[in-house]
């Protein structure tokens, strides 16, 4: 879709903007009115980007561990009773709007980073869980049978055969969760989370389109890069898994 060159250019541009935002001021100035500042300076964009990414990475890492763990549990013989329920809860859970999940986390955790982290974590679980199930339940049956017939223990089958073969599908679930979380984290700034959403909200409050654009552009570029990174990892895993 988007070539490597375009991605590399986007990455460079993003790095340049984060290192020296002021040099981009002339570009953004036409978007401001009445001499308003063109570049957000209240907090360094660099630190906002880092904490934005840290929130997303922390939440999605936790989602991935829990969701893959649950996916493994309900596909073992001992957990199979829970499989139909798990599928239904996942399907229904995905219709919960991320913003509503965020809003509901506030009464429990108050304002700040924590409700955002919780919402990102909860919402991130579903795509990863769904894909883990899909990956582990559609393995080629002869391969699983052969692994059993050759005397692998259940743990050996899981680690040496099932998870490596399901990895590409699991990774695409993580990618989906990460990209959604990147965007939802911005909304977290409405409940005082320390993210790039702060820039956008500052723009909304002061009617400064330049802020909205720079906050949005940084997040969108991050999303593109993370999406491309995961896709590359997926295709590497896919060719390693021999598909």
């Amino acid at each position: 879709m988007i070539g490597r060159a375009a991605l590399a250019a986007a990455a460079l541009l993003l790095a340049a903007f984060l290192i020296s935002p002021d040099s981009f001021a002339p570009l953004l100035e036409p978007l401001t009115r009445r001499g308003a500042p063109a570049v957000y300076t209240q907090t360094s964009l660099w630190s906002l980007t880092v904490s934005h990414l840290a929130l997303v990475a922390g939440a999605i890492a936790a989602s991935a561990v829990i969701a893959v763990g649950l996916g493994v549990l309900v596909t073992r013989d001992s957990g199979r009773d829970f499989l139909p329920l798990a599928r239904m809860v996942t399907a229904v859970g995905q219709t919960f709007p991320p913003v509503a999940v965020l809003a509901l986390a506030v009464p429990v955790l108050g304002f700040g980073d924590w409700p955002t982290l919780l919402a990102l974590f909860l919402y991130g679980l579903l795509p990863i869980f769904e894909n883990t199930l899909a990956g582990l339940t559609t393995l080629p049956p002869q391969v699983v049978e052969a692994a059993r017939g050759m005397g692998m223990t259940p743990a050996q089958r899981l680690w040496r055969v099932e998870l490596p073969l399901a990895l590409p599908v699991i990774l695409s679930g993580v990618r989906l969760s990460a990209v959604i979380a990147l965007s939802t984290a911005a909304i977290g700034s409405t409940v005082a989370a320390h993210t790039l959403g702060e820039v956008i909200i500052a723009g909304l409050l002061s009617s400064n389109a330049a802020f909205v654009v720079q906050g949005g552009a940084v997040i969108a570029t991050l999303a593109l890069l993370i999406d491309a990174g995961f896709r590359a990892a997926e295709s590497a895993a896919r060719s390693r898994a021999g598909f």
Partner: protein
Amino acid sequence: MIEIEHLTRRYGPRAVVNDVSLTVQRSEIVALVGTSGSGKTTLLRMINRLVEPSSGRVRIAGTDTATLPPHQLRRRIGYAIQGHGLFPHRSVAQNIATVPRLLGWDRARIDARVDELLDLFQLPPEEFRDRRPQELSGGQQQRVGVARALAARPELLLMDEPFGALDPVIRAQAQQDLRRIQRELGTTLLLVTHDMTEAMFLAHRIAVMDDGRLLQCAPARDILTRPASPLVQALAGEQARPFHLLSLSQVADLAQPGTAEGPPLAPETSLRDALAQCLWSGRDALPVAGGGVVTLAALRQAASGETGRTGAGASVKAGVPSPPASPPAPQ
């Protein structure tokens, strides 16, 4: 080698395998045949406990299999299935090394064993070691599958329709390779197949199953000439019976003194092929290399199952063609 005693597997009220007893000698090949749903695959899978028996007992080399943890039991038994089940994320060498690695062999020993097996299956190691299974042809994948099953030098090899996914030409080649390798290694082999011709070609004895029961277990010739029941007769293929019988013997067995026109047949040519040549060339007798002839009359008699009354041939070997009728005595 394997003693199966009163083995039964029930699913609910239905017995998929019903009170089957069977003994397999060391280095013997036994083929399990029967219609689909006859319980032959379930019987095979109970031997390495992929299916747990409802009742009965299996002993391998004197050890009751129920006393071993299933995964340790399976590491001692080779297992090859239809569609090979090779791990797509592992190279050919890694696939073959699976069980030796599970058993904790050291690296050098594993590498040597992998190369040895690749040579045995006529897959040059330098060329095939690092390939992925999906880069191989169907026949090559199947050979790697069998090599993997044999990697840890199991005394017993279980095969479930191992050649089911191959086309006829490759299939015939694979059967010949298997017979050659089995004779070299002396592995005991239990094979599930629905193809009676394959069973006749490979097996010392054929076990015929229907509806969970073992109807008869005997050498191919006995299955054809002395079926235990009409059902066995039907399963053995009534129309093809003369041809099956002919395929069990070689022209050397039937040769009688005399001379005939034409190029001589190799002594190990099957009677079935000899008959085909007679019919196609319109001759009554064919010369056999090394002296003697095989006549159409003798072939006709052999095809009727009455080999006992023909002269030289039948007395030489009443059994199966190249695999000996009785396996070598346990060493």
